[in-house]
């Protein structure tokens, strides 16, 4: 294929197969470092999410993979083919743009057939129809994009990228403009498509729930670096930085000094009370740590519990300052002197769920094995 096209005016389309590697990639815009010495491997066929707040460099990263930006230093590789410096149209990579960027003067079918036609493939229209069927848009093939809703345009944008069977498909916050219900549907849909075509998907998003729902692997980015990367459950259960703990779900965190050890546990002390955290679940072994527990791991007691198990930690009494009913669960905000306000999720398993009210005195307990500890300040 590449040999055939290298003689045409199109320029050489690189064929490359395998995992995507970013090798010590840095991108500067003037004085601003958007991506800072980042290395990353995305296994072939996986659904990978780059998660981070706006300005963290995740979109710049994506654009460097697409070839829309060139790195200041470092290499972009697929398998063992170095793509650094090549033009977007030479890369076996396609992008689903945030604004969809469909061609408004072409019909949906022509939009989808655009890539195959440029590559001089035979049966471009038939391939387009096949891709449109995959995203369930066949019935609108004759329409033009401006006549369609955001959700429909989104599906067409996915089809237009998919039809090329790229080695890597990039999704730049593709669901950002959709309403919540449609977004949920498309999350499931994209996951289904990815599973059925088996291509590598790299999905950029600032929505942690979206990243966790869809991706096999999530990389959390901040200030142009990857803070932590792993399976969604793993990241949630054991964040290794304060930023990840706070960005991925909610976390109750307080800073406390390590005062000793007890078997597998480190002991920290705050407001005269001692708490344990497994050594394996702490990134710090001395000095001060940020001690964290997820809100759903906390239990509320209206009276001081007497049945504390050996591993359980207890604080209290504190006061409930807010109760919000969210359907499946209820969220309580509890203020205990000497601690930051704590968030507690209680499952609404009983018929009459809310028995605790604002102003009630409560105790909080949790299993020490669920706690984690990270370095207190974000390391710059």
């Amino acid at each position, binding site marked *: 294929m590449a040999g055939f096209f290298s003689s045409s005016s199109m320029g050489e389309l690189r064929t490359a197969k395998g995992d995507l590697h970013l090798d010590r990639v840095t991108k500067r815009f003037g004085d601003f470092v958007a991506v800072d010495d980042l290395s990353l491997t995305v296994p072939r066929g996986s659904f990978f999410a780059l998660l981070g707040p706006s300005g963290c460099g995740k979109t710049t990263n994506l654009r460097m993979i697409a070839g829309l930006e060139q790195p200041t230093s470092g290499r972009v590789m697929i398998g063992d083919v170095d793509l650094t410096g090549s033009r977007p149209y030479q890369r076996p990579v396609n992008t689903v743009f945030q604004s969809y960027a469909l*061609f408004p003067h072409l019909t949906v079918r022509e939009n989808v057939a*655009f890539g195959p036609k440029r590559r001089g493939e035979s049966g471009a229209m038939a391939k387009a129809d096949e891709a449109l069927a995959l995203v369930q848009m066949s019935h609108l093939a004759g329409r033009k994009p401006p006549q369609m809703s955001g959700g429909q345009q989104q599906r067409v944008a996915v089809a237009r990228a998919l039809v090329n069977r790229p080695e890597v498909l990039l999704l730049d916050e593709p669901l950002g403009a959709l309403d919540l219900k449609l977004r949920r549907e498309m999350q499931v849909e994209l996951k289904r498509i990815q599973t059925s075509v088996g291509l590598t998907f790299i999905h950029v998003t600032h929505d942690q729930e979206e990243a966790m729902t869809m991706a096999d692997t999530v990389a959390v980015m901040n200030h142009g670096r990857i803070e932590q990367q792993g399976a969604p459950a793993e990241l949630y259960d054991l964040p290794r930085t304060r930023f990840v703990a706070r960005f991925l779900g909610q976390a109750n965190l307080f800073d406390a000094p390590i005062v000793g050890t007890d078997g597998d546990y480190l002991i920290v002390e705050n407001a005269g009370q001692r708490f344990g955290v497994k050594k394996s679940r702490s990134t710090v072994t001395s000095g001060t740590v940020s001690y964290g527990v997820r809100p759903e791991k906390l239990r509320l007691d209206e009276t001081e519990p007497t049945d504390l198990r050996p591993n359980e930690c207890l604080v209290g009494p504190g006061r409930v300052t807010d109760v919000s009913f969210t359907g499946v669960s209820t969220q309580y905000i509890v203020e205990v002197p000497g601690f930051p306000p704590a968030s507690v999720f209680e499952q609404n398993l009983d018929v009459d769920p809310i028995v605790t009210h604002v102003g009630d005195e409560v105790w909080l307990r949790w299993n020490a094995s669920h706690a984690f500890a990270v370095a207190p300040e974000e390391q710059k």
Partner: protein
Amino acid sequence: MTALASATQHATGSHPAADQPDEARAVGARKITPYLLLIPGLAWLVLFFIVPMVQLAVVSLESKFPGYPGYYYLDLAVWNYRDALSEFWPHIIRSFVFAGVATILAFIIGYPLAYAMAFKAGKWRNVMMILVIAPFFTSFILRTIAWRQILADEGPVASTLNALHLLPGGHITETWVAVVAGLTYNFLPFMTLPIYSSLERIDPKIIEAGGDLYANGFTTFHKVTLPMSMPGVLAGTLMTFIPASGDYVNAELLGSDISTKMVGNAIESQFFRVPGGYPTAAALSFTLMAIILVMLFAYTRKFGTENLL
């Protein structure tokens, strides 16, 4: 109208128990308002467009009153058209050829200029915009006279070309080249600005998408950018071609006495200089208008009116 009707319906629907006469009056007023707003414009059009148009049509069918120069009578003299065309058909053809060449040249110069302004100018965009518009700050006539100086035999262009023996005939002024150059120059902003405005509206991500989908720079331009800027191209070519074909200033100031005259010059001389030339001038004006309307119709049929709006 539909929006108006539904707004009215909504207003009545949302207050079923409201005071009926008041409601009706409010609705009535709301229905009239758009028409009231149209009155000044309509009055202007009727007074200065429809009435003169009818008058012109009447004049084009009048005959000279024998023995009383300057007096005419209406006798449905359709042969005025035949006479005008048989005498001035070369002017009409010249008008459209000159205007056509000027339009093509203005497109060749204006499109890259508009493209540079829209995508490449960066912080210079406003400066370029001002440079494109700046000629409007001075009179059209003065600028055309300035071109006469530039293209004159002793001027920099003609003397350089003459020194290099590249100018057959030795002149630029008094030739069709000068007239077309003047037309191109004078109508360039009318070509550039509509193209610029349609290019500037294109989301840069759409152009990136072309590159992402295996189209190189040239193919992306050919398949994406150019088709998307067609509304501007269509508007620009019409805004150049139509006034250029009716122009007489450039041919008057830059052209020669006979061989470069356009239909505008013929109308002007019939109207102001030839005794009893009113019907001929009117007939020529109507002929010009009719030909332009036919061409406009064919052009928009080919390229689509929805692109124009």
